[in-house]
């Protein structure tokens, strides 16, 4: 599974993407964030305010309770500021 990071989340993690293989019990976006945070203190710190983290699964915007089973790409990013 490929994870993408954007904007200040990308900067704080110092990477735009990574490949991870979470175990099967990591079922939702929320679970994935918890699992990534448990592995990496910098990540845990960057996502400590969960309400500031948005997610997309396979280029579809999803809520944190969305399933990630079978997902190829999960993206995590701050609130969008386009336009």
């Amino acid at each position, binding site marked *: 599974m490929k994870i993408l990071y954007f904007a200040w989340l990308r900067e704080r993690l110092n990477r735009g993407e990574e490949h991870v293989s979470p175990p099967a019990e990591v079922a939702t976006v929320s679970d994935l964030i918890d699992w990534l945070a448990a592995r990496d203190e910098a990540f845990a710190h960057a996502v400590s305010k969960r309400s500031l983290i948005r997610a997309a699964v396979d280029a579809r915007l999803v809520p944190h309770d969305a399933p990630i089973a079978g997902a190829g790409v999960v993206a995590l990013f701050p609130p969008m*500021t386009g336009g």
Partner: protein
Amino acid sequence: MPVRVTTEPFDPGAETNAFLAAGQGAGAAVTFTGVVRSSPDDPVTSLTLECYPELAINQLEAILADATARFELLAATVIHRYGTLAPGEPIVQVMTLSPHRAAAFRGAEFLMDYLKTDAPFWKQESGPNGTVWVAPRDEDDTAKARWS
């Protein structure tokens, strides 16, 4: 092509003319153009937009379909740039076409309100004091909320 997400500059007037040419017979067209702002009080040397293009295209297509149905638009287009832009350069343009002016105005406002909060672009402003990520504005959430 009703959604365009691109690092290339675009010509606002040429886009409006192409849009109008395709819509002969409709009465009312609205073009909104957002440009990189800079003022003596708040000077900006450049604006860099980060983008997640695949998601941006999906989101903008969904927003366009929603606006088109809701306001019975005859046509609607969104162009959004990313990369590094200078003050005065166009960032975004939305265009709407309708038999009636109220629908064309409402459609263009709806598109702008939604894309401000729902399209995956992130702005970073550079000025004399350094480079900062632009914070989301509460007004943008308020503006979007009035449509629901």
